[in-house]
């Protein structure tokens, strides 16, 4: 056991950080930009990353990656959030949509989609949740019925982030209504512009474009849009969602906000107040705990293991870190924190959605409890 980064990793971080500091000298959140502008700027930015081999460094070389160890992916994730996550929704392409296609795609799907994702010229959205299938994702009812060389899709997806600007939807649909509900689900890689797909905004208190509903009415797609074998979509998605859980370095973004809040306190000579000290310290420690738990996930990935349990534990710690930093932000900034886009306000959105977006907190707890306490009551 040791806790040193290799020279290569340190050099990678330094070079990446210098580049990002140069391109984005002033911190702002790309997610706060209006959707169209966000799409445009993010697309332009990931192309810069792609040119430098920094978009998909962990992917195999044959698919446009540089086969770097998962640690590079971690460094990338940390530096991205430290610079406002300029990849926006595209972290998803890199972290789990691409890997899903690597895992289960046909040669044609790989050639087309992986090339585009690794070049950074495509936006995706994730069509999982439905009005009656949130935590209970396997209860989804959108159907895809085989008709010759095509599937006909009908149903409704909800909460779909970025659907208004995405070109493709990574869609889960039911292809078999019999048997265990998990066993009748398939994945489809669907162009959002296909006739019969209607995307609507859902207004919310979150960043613009956070939520949409997507209606599918007799949407015909070629069978070649299906990813992986029919009815096996759920297990593919399950495997890859570990990546979704670790894909955004939430602890690092929260720690960044905490640093800004500490500076705010220092500017007001508050750093020798014991209550301020305790508040900052416990929030910092929460971020550090989450950091080490995600490092355990990357370590397991490096050793070729399937980091399920450690990914759940990390996610749990990351949600806590987000919330504790939010609490610290409002405790310390008081009414100043209420202003739109104050550090406290920015952290609030991440903290209040942390346990819901990307699968709920309680689902992680349930999964962990099953493993740690056993399934018997």
């Amino acid at each position, binding site marked *: 056991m040791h806790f040193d980064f290799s020279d290569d990793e340190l050099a990678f971080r330094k070079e990446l950080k210098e580049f990002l500091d140069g391109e984005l000298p002033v911190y702002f959140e790309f997610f706060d930009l209006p959707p169209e502008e966000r799409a445009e700027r993010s697309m332009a930015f990931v192309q810069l990353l792609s040119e430098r081999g920094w978009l998909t460094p962990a992917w195999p070389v044959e698919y446009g990656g540089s086969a770097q160890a998962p640690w590079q992916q971690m460094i990338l994730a940390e530096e991205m959030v430290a610079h406002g996550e300029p990849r926006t929704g595209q972290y998803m392409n890199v972290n789990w949509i691409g890997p899903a296609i690597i895992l289960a795609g046909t040669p044609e799907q790989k050639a087309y989609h992986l090339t585009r994702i690794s070049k950074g010229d495509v936006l995706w959205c994730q069509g999982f949740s439905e009005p009656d299938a949130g935590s209970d994702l396997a209860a989804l009812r959108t159907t895809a019925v085989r008709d010759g060389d095509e599937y006909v899709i009908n149903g409704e997806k909800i909460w779909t982030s970025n659907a208004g600007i995405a070109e493709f939807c990574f869609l889960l649909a039911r292809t078999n209504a019999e048997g265990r509900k998990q066993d009748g689900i398939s994945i489809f890689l669907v162009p959002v512009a296909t006739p019969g797909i209607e995307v609507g905004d859902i207004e919310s208190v979150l960043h613009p474009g956070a939520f949409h509903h997507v209606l599918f009415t007799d949407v015909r797609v070629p069978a070649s849009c299906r990813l992986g074998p029919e009815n096996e979509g759920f297990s593919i998605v399950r495997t890859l969602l570990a990546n979704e859980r670790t894909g955004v370095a939430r602890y690092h973004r929260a720690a960044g906000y905490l640093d800004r809040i500490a500076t705010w306190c220092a500017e007001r000579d508050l750093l020798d107040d014991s209550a301020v000290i305790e508040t900052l310290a416990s929030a910092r420690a929460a971020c550090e705990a989450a950091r080490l738990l995600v490092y355990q996930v990357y370590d397991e990935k490096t050793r070729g293991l399937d980091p399920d349990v450690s990914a759940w534990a990390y996610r749990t710690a990351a949600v806590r870190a987000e919330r504790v930093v939010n609490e610290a932000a409002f405790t310390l900034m*008081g009414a100043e924190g209420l202003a739109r886009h104050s550090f406290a306000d920015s952290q609030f959105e991440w903290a209040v959605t942390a346990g819901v977006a990307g699968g709920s907190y309680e689902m992680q707890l349930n999964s962990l409890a099953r493993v740690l306490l056993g399934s018997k009551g």
Partner: protein
Amino acid sequence: MEMTLSPTQQAVLDACTTALGRAAGPARARELRSAGGADDRLLTLLGEAGYLDVALDEESGPLTAVLITELAARHLALAPVGARSLVAPAVIAAEQLPEFVTIMDLAFGGPVRYAAQSEALIVLDGHDARLFTAAEYTTTAVETLFGYPLARVELQGGGVDLGAGSGDVARRWWRVAIAAEIAGTARAALDLTIDHMQGRVQFGKPLSALQALQHRVIETHVLIEGAMWMAREAAYHGAPAESSSSAAVAAVEAAGRTLFEVHQLSGSIGFTDEYDLTLSSLRLQTLRTEAGGMAAHSRALVAGRWGA
């Protein structure tokens, strides 16, 4: 000791509930959210019906005022009912009470609730307080997610001195008012969440049937109940330093817990504009930072209890 309402109190609250049911509520809160500003109409209506002056009435007193403050918050009233019905009567002579009044403390920075909409501002400056009319200060609106119109205030005139010790008195009543507003607002958020959980089926059963979630709802419920009763008792006793600050401490704790629990338990729908939750939940963030928030309430409690 008698912890049920007297017939007179019940009658006042029933009538006030009817008035609030008509004039406040989610639809009105949503209307005001898009229009900006505060609910002058509601404040006038409550004033004309006498609800804002019950603290001065010998029979009703501040206890009824705190019940009305709580009730108004529960109905999502967007008006300074607590400031007007609990704080102002404690420091301003009855015949000079402005209709629309709000409070700021010079000890704390940050934007002030309802400052731009008020006719008058009670400014706490250490032990004393001064009353400024709207002509004596300017405001700059502050954009916020957290449910109330906020503005930064710049004082210009000198205001009217409200007497020695008026700052301390106002501050104690302010804490009671905040605690009551939190109790009502948090209750609205939690009630809606319980309703949602009873109807929302996942994994073949309603969320309300899951024990892991039930316990969290109940813990939140108990925090809110505690704060509510503490605000009531403090008001009844005339807002003593200790019990008014302990009510505020309990309420701020309840507010923080409620805000995060109701959103977690409601899932994505809780964040949408079409659903009512954010109309109450987000206000809790403002209420918990007001009057110096937890740090100031805690200091006051420790000083009130153990001396400092």
